[in-house]
């Protein structure tokens, strides 16, 4: 073993493991929103840093795929860089920052602004797959609640928010009902991104490595954010456009630019921002 670098299978995972994960994925796609338990493997990144997403991507990726990896919407954040280079190394696959060119997009905390197309797959890194977890810590109880379609407790939480704050106080990982049946945690994307899931043309796969669960939203599935008729779900809106590209319909990051706390707002989706900027300023060089 000393000094010898072991040979790794394509995309790191052995074929048995990939088969096991694909079976779990098929089950997940067949029952939209249902959390399928799977025997999550250790991979060379720590638990909590995207091992679920990595295992899902590793199970489905092939040499003809084009992989994009984003974290907080950006390609260049450290964890996205780390994961992208991991797959480049173990799967010898083409990588890209262009949302439109990607076949697989692994993401943490954002859905790209560019509408997804048929044939694209989103892979989400999920920390807590159970939407009821913070209301009911017991796995044995929450399993029953899903099986028996008993989601009253979730609505109680929303009721309490309105009674206390005058509005529903969930800004990210906002619970959704998938295909009219299962209550799902869409991962900690801001609620701004929830509407993108409804009747999306792409396949959405969710991997929670540490909690050992996989779930899926197949293309063209109904996805509704939970609300009351008289307190309908309203995603965040921003008061000003992106300072870099002028977009008025994208999710913005707040950036502190000077010692006086001066701020500006810029698109969290860096690829979208760049593309938009080019559209607005076709004669300018790339920054």
């Amino acid at each position, binding site marked *: 073993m000393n000094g010898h670098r072991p040979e790794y299978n394509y995309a790191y995972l052995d074929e048995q493991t990939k088969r096991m994960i694909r079976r779990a994925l098929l089950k997940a796609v067949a029952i939209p929103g249902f959390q399928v338990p799977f*025997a999550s493997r250790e991979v060379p990144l720590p638990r909590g840093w995207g091992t679920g997403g990595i295992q899902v991507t590793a199970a489905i990726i092939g040499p003809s795929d084009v992989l994009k990896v984003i974290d907080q919407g950006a390609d260049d954040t450290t964890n996205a860089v780390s994961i992208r280079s991991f797959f480049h190394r173990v799967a010898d696959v083409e990588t890209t920052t262009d949302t439109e060119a990607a076949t697989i997009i692994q993401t943490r*905390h954002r859905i790209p602004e560019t509408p997804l197309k048929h044939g694209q797959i989103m892979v989400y890194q999920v920390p807590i797959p159970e939407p009821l977890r913070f209301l009911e810590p*017991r*796995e044995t109880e929450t399993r029953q609640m899903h099986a028996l379609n008993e989601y009253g407790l979730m609505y109680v939480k929303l009721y309490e928010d309105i009674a206390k704050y005058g509005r529903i106080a969930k800004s990210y990982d906002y619970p959704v009902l998938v295909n009219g049946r299962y209550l799902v945690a869409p991962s*900690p994307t801001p609620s701004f991104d929830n509407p993108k899931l409804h009747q999306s043309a792409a396949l959405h796969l969710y991997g929670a490595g540490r909690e050992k669960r996989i779930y899926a939203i197949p293309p063209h599935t109904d996805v509704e954010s939970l609300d009351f008729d008289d307190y309908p779900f309203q995603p965040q809106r921003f008061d000003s456009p992106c300072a870099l590209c002028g977009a008025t319909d994208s999710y913005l990051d707040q950036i502190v630019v000077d010692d006086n706390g001066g701020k500006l707002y810029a698109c969290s989706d860096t690829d979208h921002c760049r593309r938009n900027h080019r559209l607005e300023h076709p004669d300018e060089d790339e920054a």
Partner: protein
Amino acid sequence: MYVAVKGGQKAIAHAHALLAKEGRGALSVDRLSVDAVAGQLPVLVSRVMTEGSLYDPDLAARAIRQSQGDVIEAITLLRSYRTTLPRLGYTRPIDTARLTPQRRVSATFKDIPGGQQLGATFDYTHRLFDDPSDVLGDNLAENPQSMPRVTDLLGADALLEPDHPEVWDDPEPGDLTTEPGLFPMSRAGRLQALARGDEGFLLAMGYSTQRGFGNSHPFAGEIRVGEVEIEIDVPGVEHPVPVGRIEVTECQMINQFVGAPGAPPQFTRGYGLVFGRGERKAMSMALVDRALRAEEFDERVVAPAQDEEFVVSHADSVQAAGFVEHLKLPHYVDFQAESSLLRRLRSDPSNSKNSVGGAE
């Protein structure tokens, strides 16, 4: 004009270089050899092997060196490597009765067949920094005779619950690393989780039972440390084939007696087993094992150590460290969402319960 931050790739490369430099230390000092770590830090190596679920002292030593002494990093390294190994088969269960004890003690009897054998232990050392020039004594007689387990002796009188039920089809235990465990778990599944679990966490849980959070009145029936033979069944060969020896530490706790309708009361067991030298972990494991059997004995579940979901979900150091440390990753998108929400809640004068449809 603000330009979006780039350079994540370069930053990571620099971080890796700095890490390597930190880990090497002063160049005038020889690099620690893997053999030195394996030979002179065997307790640490045992822990990494146990929680890494892989018996390979050299590899564990290498992991400890590469992780610059960060135990959980080392365990993570070992486990990641373990994932890639092919599964060739399963051994026969090891027979710790045939273990040749390097160390074997029992707190339940003054003397036992085979005697109390202290072996290599810190127990009676004085915790004073020693003088490194002290010469090793050479009167180190090894006593390799095998000794019957104390629990088998007690069990012969039927004072102690047997180590397996009378009617037992001996089902194949599942493998926690290749199957998704679901609650409620079998005892075998729990023991796997505890064997892999963080020593500190289990120590605290075990300690809590002694302080009244689910007390089971434990006695250390036996602790034995030594090598056992690993054997496999080979098709076409009549007898089991030995493939090597590994060192283990086993702890059997004898606990509160319990009666059942129709059966006289008996002492009950708690079990702990780890690779290499790991008494503290084996003992903690045995205490927690017994605590988690509370429902089996109709005991009231009142303490965290008796709560299977709580103990098993939080015992894994690699999972725990990963999730705790993931907080270092950027979370600014969600923080932004929460800040916006908070600002709106604070600025909304009608925080009134009856306003219709919150205006954004």
